[in-house]
């Protein structure tokens, strides 16, 4: 019987802490706090908001938030320039080469404030929570190992192998030739 007792705990460990919790509503002060990223002067990298760290970096680990991020990615036309990570007029994510780094703060700032090369600022259209959800999802597209919490494919025509085979090209640590 001992193993029967041990098993639930093993599953607890497997499940992580709050990977499945669905926080459907952020308190406005928390959301305001989540907006306070400190960015390096060159616009690359920086410190995430204190609230973000205190919450346990939910937007990188929480399955529901990642999934919401994926929906937003489609809904707000990210596919128009970045396709499903393969890139088009915008840079690719799949190759794992990130012009501003793969750090969530950089991604957050890119989405919120836009970038000079043609990336528009989405801060006007999206709430802070949504930007973080998008950040979390975008980060998984370029990750070298798939997160178990990451959402899987969409019910639509597929332009690339399934998510759990991402990244499609491994080891592209050189900038893609243009």
């Amino acid at each position, binding site marked *: 019987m001992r193993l*029967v007792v041990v098993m639930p705990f093993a*599953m607890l460990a497997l*499940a992580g802490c709050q990977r499945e919790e669905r926080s*459907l509503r952020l308190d406005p002060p928390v959301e305001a706090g989540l907006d306070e990223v400190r960015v390096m002067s060159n616009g690359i990298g920086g410190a995430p908001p204190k609230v973000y760290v205190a919450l346990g970096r939910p937007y990188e680990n929480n399955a529901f938030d990642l999934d919401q991020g994926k929906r937003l990615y489609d809904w707000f036309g990210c596919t128009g320039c970045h396709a499903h990570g393969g890139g088009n007029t915008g840079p690719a994510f799949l190759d794992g080469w990130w012009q501003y780094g793969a750090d969530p703060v950089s991604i957050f700032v890119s989405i919120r404030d836009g970038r000079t090369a043609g990336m528009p600022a989405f801060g006007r259209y999206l709430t802070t929570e949504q930007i973080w959800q998008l950040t979390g999802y975008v980060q998984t597209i370029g990750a070298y190992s798939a997160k178990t919490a990451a959402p899987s494919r969409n019910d639509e025509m597929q332009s690339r192998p399934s998510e759990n085979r991402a990244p499609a090209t491994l080891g592209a640590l050189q900038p893609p030739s243009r």
Partner: protein
Amino acid sequence: MSTLDISSDPRDTGLDERALARRLADLWQTPRGIIGTLSSVDHKIIGRRYIVTAFFFLLLGGVLALAIRIQLAKPENRFLAPDLYNQVFTVHGANMMFLFAVPVMEAFAVYLVPLMIGTRNIAFPRLNAFSYWIYLPGGITLWVAFALDMGPDVGWFAYVPLSGPQYGAGKRADIWAQMITFTEVSALAVAVELVVTIFKQRAPGMSLDKIPLFVWSMLVTSFLIIMAMPAIMVASTTLILDRLVGTHFYNPAEGGDVLLWQHLFWFFGHPEVYIIFLPAVGMVSTIVSTFARRPIFGYLPLVLALFATGILAFGLWVHHMFVVGLPRVGESFFTASSMAIAVPNGIQIFCWLATLWDGRPVFKTPLLFVIAFIITFVIGGLTGVMVASVPLDTQVHDTYFVVAHFHYVLVGGAVFPLLGAVYYWYPKIIGRMMSERLGRWVAGLVFVGFNLTFFPMHILGLIGMPRRVYTYGPEMNWGSINLFVSLSAAILAAGFLLFFVDAIRSAFSGEPAPENPWNAPTLEWATSSPPPSYNFERIPVVSSSDPLWETPETLPVATGLRTDRRELLLTSLSEANPQARESSPRDSIWPFLAAIATTVMLISSIFSAWAVVWGSVPIAVTLIAWFWPKGTPEDAA
């Protein structure tokens, strides 16, 4: 083994009863200690574990049902948030279907079938142990996931695309699908054991026309399981593949189809109802015959009705899909077949009524449950006829009318007989009687509480309340009926609580049970209560379908089995003529370890497809160790 006198003849021929009992006990007893407990292959010990575990899940599922009723008691209640509510009703449904109803019926069969057909153990006893050890982690998986806010929230039917990769975030739907795998493996294993046990291990003389009706019902049920459960295995596996490795079975944009899921699910899901109901039919036939004090009327029609139900069960899955927009011709066919199943069910009811009419009923608690069963189940069957009509179904489908209908069928049709069966066989299993006084209260409370709770739901459905809504507005006029239903649910809950109290109390302080307290006719009552580890000192020989009524004083038995190895008798398929003395395996820890290895593989495969590869290595190792001959006398041929 030390008490065995090696020099003497290892046969039981000529041994007096006390010496024989001592030898058999040494041979068949499950060893003490934790290893012994985990190694046991005694069908009675495993059956008891199964029953207790299943009733524990019933209790848990019942708590969820009460939570649902509290939430719905008034409009716009905030007792359960929508996310939690969805998990609650999904876990309630999945738990009741997969962790309670099917296992508890199989559990009773595991315990009773070998006794009723007069053999010493079930066929493939180690597989039997394995099936329990794989069922338990399946249940734990579901409930631990629920506790971790990771419980499935897509309904017990898990329709795609809601449960698919795009809309089912996280691992909740995977938990559901893998829980299915656990319980189906266990159910399939038991089904195979039962088929072989019933085919090959019946007491000499128990030809096909003398098999007790409960055993017949379990035989048909086992075949239903074998033919229907692969469908849900295929379905849940393809769902996991869709979610984990990006296959496209259910993705309409890439050639998949959403309705394919529903076809697969209901190809299993409808027979599932009969997998739960047919064993209950067997229980009712047994109880009716015993308490009407006469053989069951219409043995042959009852057996044929079981077969007819089993066959028709595969021809009506589409009646769960009448509003998806299928071609008219198909719908007409499925209407006709769904209606037709009322005929065999009618025959069963009439045969029971005829038995009661002609018999001399003794009003003990089990019979009270059968009476409650007939009154409620007929309502469920008749509303079943209503929803079988396509046009009618378009109004009541997915409303509380259907909730009422299937609770009448499953609770009225299966749980009532099951409670009756508990009161009936408890003395045999535990060795003590349950309280007749409390039993009457339980029967009354459950019957009244159930009908007050579920009958108004028919009306709720007709006045427009859909299923699976976590709340409703005050302007909908559903509030008062819902409050009434919720209050009635408390009566039902009180009935079940009293049942659990009675069952637990009687185990310690019930009146000790004699061998055959009900003066019943079947073989399980021909041995002590509870039965010894070897079931019967000598294998009974049967010449009637009611052997203990045929010869109430003496039991004809067979002699000549060995006493130095676990031995039982194989008989021929139809006539049950003795064919061979076959050995029955000893206790082994390997089924338990194999189940642990399987559990590790199945849980890990939710997170990585590679787990199937590396996870199968320990499984293979444990299985080889399980089957590798140990050189015991059982291995001799």
